[in-house]
């Protein structure tokens, strides 16, 4: 199956084509849903079989390139369509197809009765197709194709309910915002690609990375520029400062979309890309520091915003931004394995949180404000239990999945970055536990705060709860793939052993080795568990027993509270500093003057020149056959004359 990995890409494409072409005619939700989910399920099987085949091989034979065909040759540049099956891409592919499959199943229940049911599955399959291209690509061009493809799908799915209102505007506006902000990142990525081609004469991963692997006179500054350009791309796709503003608005899409695209998979594309280019980043110390600082800052600021939001999906959105920040913090520390580890565990529990939120929204008739929930425990037991599991996992209580990955990141932050990095990270972890349990308690515990005469919450159907249970199991056990050395011994970290060949060169350049940590690491571990536990306890006390404390705190620190509630006014600042000036110059200088006067003037006069020419030249076509013959004769005579003049 390893050599047929393209099947895992082809199947979603076939599902997309089938539902896209026939979905509107079929109308039967069962068939559309079965085809859509089945395609992803089969793709997951293909990846799974490939994974086990790869495991069976000795480590040095595991990486494999499956070339398909050459798309275009232009001089030295040859663009191939080929896929790379290695340890890193397999891990990502399993997460994408596995969680994708579960979310597809969930969507059959969630989207039941929607008039765009077939459209939803069409887009979702297209997304998986694009995402698999991104992950499995063996060159930058194909990766970029997937990168743009997931961006397109994200746009289509955020604006899926294009006729609905979202906050102050419409879902289409949210979709456009996501698209435009991502374009800024993509621009950086493209520039990065150009620089790579300029310096390495290739866009193939194997060639670029092997040329970068041997120090061949390319100065560090070049690496810094390349890595920073690529990182700009990553900040767009993975919602980091300064381009994170689109992700909270992306919650306008249906909740399964938020779970799949805006939590578990697409937003981690930036992390994957940086990890894939680990050698480029490892050779660029400045860029690596920037990655770490941006990651840390994003993690912290997003977590503080998450503390006060009242929309269930908004809290989760900021939490996603914050967790993505953790991943970049890990990458910036040169701990690529830790970053990927957190991608995996985060995919489990964040998908679960979103799907749980979807289940709540479903049961509460589209209500999303957590202040209007409360006491849902007795109405939705499955949702409540699974949500609690996910909340514990993200808060970092052992032995749930999030604990191990987050702790590894914090430990790396301390050992490679120093106390400051660890401290901010730990404070962020404290906030995380707090806002997550605030969310959990306000939703499920306490007394109902909704009008129980009109609103009758109910548990979701099996199609939706079974996916929740699957993800809950994964959120509990998912962390065991990356046990720390202190607990599991020198070679006990499965994920680290597995990914070691991929990051070997980068690790060597950073002079990192799998060092043993000893008692200090245990101390930090205990410390972070304590932080999380205390935080949860506080959340419980405040929101379950004495809700007044929260209001009082908001009153006392009203300035801070409003700043957080309004997300540090970043949207407003961007509006004032970027959007409005651009709109104004566009309107006055670019549109009314440059475009209308200069460009349109030029274009229109050129166009009228040619149409005028056309009008005149068509008169040659008289319709008289004799005239046509005369013209032919004239042509032949001229040609003969020309030839004879050459011969002589």
């Amino acid at each position, binding site marked *: 199956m390893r050599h047929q990995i393209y099947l895992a890409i082809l199947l979603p494409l076939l599902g997309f084509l089938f539902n896209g072409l026939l979905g509107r005619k079929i109308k039967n939700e069962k068939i559309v849903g079965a085809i859509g989910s089945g395609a992803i399920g089969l793709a997951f099987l293909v990846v799974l079989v490939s994974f086990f085949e790869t495991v069976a091989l000795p480590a040095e034979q595991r990486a494999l390139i499956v070339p398909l065909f050459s798309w*275009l040759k232009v001089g030295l540049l040859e663009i191939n369509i080929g896929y790379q099956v290695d340890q890193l891409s397999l891990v990502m592919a399993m997460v994408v197809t596995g969680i994708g499959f579960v979310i597809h199943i969930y969507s059959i229940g969630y989207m039941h009765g929607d008039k765009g049911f077939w459209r939803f599955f069409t887009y979702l399959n297209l997304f998986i197709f694009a995402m698999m291209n991104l992950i499995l690509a063996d060159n930058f061009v194909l990766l970029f194709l997937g990168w743009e493809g997931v961006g397109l799908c994200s746009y289509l799915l955020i604006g899926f309910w294009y006729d609905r209102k979202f906050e102050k505007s419409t879902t289409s506006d949210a979709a456009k915002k996501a698209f435009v902000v991502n374009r800024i990142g993509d621009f950086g990525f493209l520039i990065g690609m150009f620089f790579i081609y300029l310096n390495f004469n290739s866009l193939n991963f194997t060639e670029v990375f092997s040329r970068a692997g041997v120090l061949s006179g390319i100065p560090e500054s070049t690496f810094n520029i390349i890595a920073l350009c690529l990182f700009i791309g990553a900040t767009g796709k993975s919602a980091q400062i300064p381009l994170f503003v689109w992700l909270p608005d992306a919650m306008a899409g249906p909740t399964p979309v938020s779970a799949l695209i805006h939590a578990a998979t697409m937003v981690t594309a930036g992390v994957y890309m940086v990890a894939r280019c680990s050698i480029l980043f490892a050779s660029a110390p400045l860029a690596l520091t920037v990655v770490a600082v941006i990651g840390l800052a994003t993690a912290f600021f997003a977590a503080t915003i998450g503390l006060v939001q009242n929309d269930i999906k908004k809290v989760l959105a900021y939490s996603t931004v914050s967790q993505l920040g953790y991943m970049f913090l890990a990458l910036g520390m040169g701990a690529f394995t830790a970053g990927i580890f957190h991608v995996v565990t985060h995919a489990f529990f964040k998908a679960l949180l979103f799907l749980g939120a979807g289940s709540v929204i479903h049961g509460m008739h589209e209500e999303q404000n957590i202040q209007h929930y409360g006491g849902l425990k007795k109405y939705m037991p499955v949702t409540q239990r699974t949500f609690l599991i996910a909340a514990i996992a993200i808060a970092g209580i052992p032995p749930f999945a999030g604990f191990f990955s987050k702790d590894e990141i914090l430990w790396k932050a301390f050992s490679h970055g120093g106390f400051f990095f660890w401290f901010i990270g730990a404070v962020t972890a404290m906030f995380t536990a707090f806002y997550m349990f605030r969310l959990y308690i306000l939703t499920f515990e306490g007394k109902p705060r909704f009008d129980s005469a009109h609103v009758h919450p109910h548990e979701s159907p099996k199609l939706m709860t079974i996916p929740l249970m699957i993800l809950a199991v994964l959120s509990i056990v998912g962390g065991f793939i990356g046990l720390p050395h202190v607990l599991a011994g020198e070679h006990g970290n499965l994920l680290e052993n597995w990914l070691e060949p991929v990051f070997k060169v980068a690790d060597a350049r950073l002079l990192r080795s799998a060092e043993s940590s000893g008692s200090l690491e245990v101390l930090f571990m205990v410390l972070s568990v304590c932080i999380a536990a205390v935080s949860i306890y506080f959340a419980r006390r405040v929101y379950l027993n004495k809700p007044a404390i929260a209001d009082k705190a908001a009153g006392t620190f009203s300035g801070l509270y409003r700043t957080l509630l309004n997300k540090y006014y970043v949207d407003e600042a961007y509006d004032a500093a970027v959007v409005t000036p651009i709109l104004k110059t566009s309107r006055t200088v670019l549109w009314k003057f440059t475009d209308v006067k200069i460009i349109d003037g030029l274009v229109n006069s050129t166009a009228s020149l*040619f149409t005028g020419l*056309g009008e005149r030249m068509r008169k040659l076509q008289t319709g008289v056959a004799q005239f046509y013959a005369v013209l032919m004769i004239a042509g032949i005579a001229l040609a003969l004359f020309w030839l004879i003049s*050459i011969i002589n």
Partner: protein
Amino acid sequence: MIPVQDLFASAPLLIIGGSILIALILEMVFDSQSSIVAWFSGSALLFTAYWSLYHLYDRGFAFNNMISISGRTQLLFFIVNFAAAVVVMFSMDYIKKIQTNYGEFYILLLSAVLGMMLIAAARDMVIVFIGLEQMSICFYVLAGFRRKNIKSNESAIKYFLLGSFATGFIVYGMALLYGASQTFSIPEYLAHVETLKSNPIFLLGSLLFVIGFTFKIAAVPFHMWVPDVYQGAPTNVTAFMSTAGKVSGFAALITFLSPFIDYSARTTGSAKFFMPFLATLSVLSMLYGAIVALSQSDVKRMLAYSSIAHAGYMLIGLSALSYEGVDGVLFYLVAYTLMNLGAFGIISILETQDEKMLKIEDFAGLSSRSPLLAAFLAVFLFALAGLPPFAGFFGKYFVFVSAVENGMTWLAIVGVISSVISVYFYLRIIVLMYFSKGENTEVVSVPKSALLGVFVVFIMFVIMSAFPQKFEGIIHTIGLLTY
């Protein structure tokens, strides 16, 4: 005694030849409303197309080197048979719609295909001529197939008059060629190219011969028949003429010019004449086709001018007189055949009994009347305009590259300018289809066979667009087999 291997080698020709005879009998035996002839011809064409594809890499000559089955021949067999098979699918309902449901339509179609295949296989001028006449006479009749329609008759007569005129030059050219070389065999020309290329009589003959075929491919200034004939002929016939007909014209040109390609043209003085000559025709065709198409209001007429422009782009590849150029032309021919077939096929579906729906403004709001057809048409038009990632773009790309590599960058620049101009009239239809509302809101009824035809073309086209380098590789490989 004819050797068996010669018979086997020429199997595609024999299959089509035999099919014509069987179709004649079927047409006599069965009732005139029966579609048995259509089914039979369609299957024969598809079978032959498959046969040639299967034997794509065969090599060899037959009948005393008069025909060749090597390399390009099989590819050209495939294109014309495939195109004809698709045209059969378009025609089954179309000729009923225009009330000319006569079985001889398919027989004429098969005969035309036989002529085209003879041209493609010929390595002897006499065979080229027989094929040309066989094809042209069928076309004259087919163009006037709507016998009670005055425009169709006009187009047939004009085509016949001017076509015979062009044939006259071809024959005269052949006479001169024979006079200069005492042979009609193209391999012989190749063998003696060093002496022939400085023979003025031979060059004069060559020029007349080439001009005769530039008439068939509709290059300016020998294009005058094209708009009138394409517009007047039944749409399915136009689809066939504008694709397979053009393929055959290029096939003859490539075959005849092959002695001049590459090694000889570089060194010789006078034979070099063909490079600037073809380049001039190319420039005239591209610009004239693109500019005049701007001011057309009839779709078929617009596509006629567009086909003139496309002949110009393909002439770029030919005028380079290099192997890469010829490969580019062949790639372009396949892509062009597919996109033009698709576009004309859709027009033939939309056309009403009384020849309505042929004005460009009739396409307004088509996307709501028939989303599927509108989407297909949009793809074909984008491709004709040469926008990536469709095969039309790669066709242009390959011929432009060959021009640049052979020191004719200016020609590629003219090509790009003309492409830019032509984008306007293709996109105009797309804009109308999607962004304006038409008065006509009735849903289009789409006959199944024609839709299948469009679909088959579309699939082929998508595959070609996805794997351009692979196709180019195949064409290059079989090009090497040709010599």
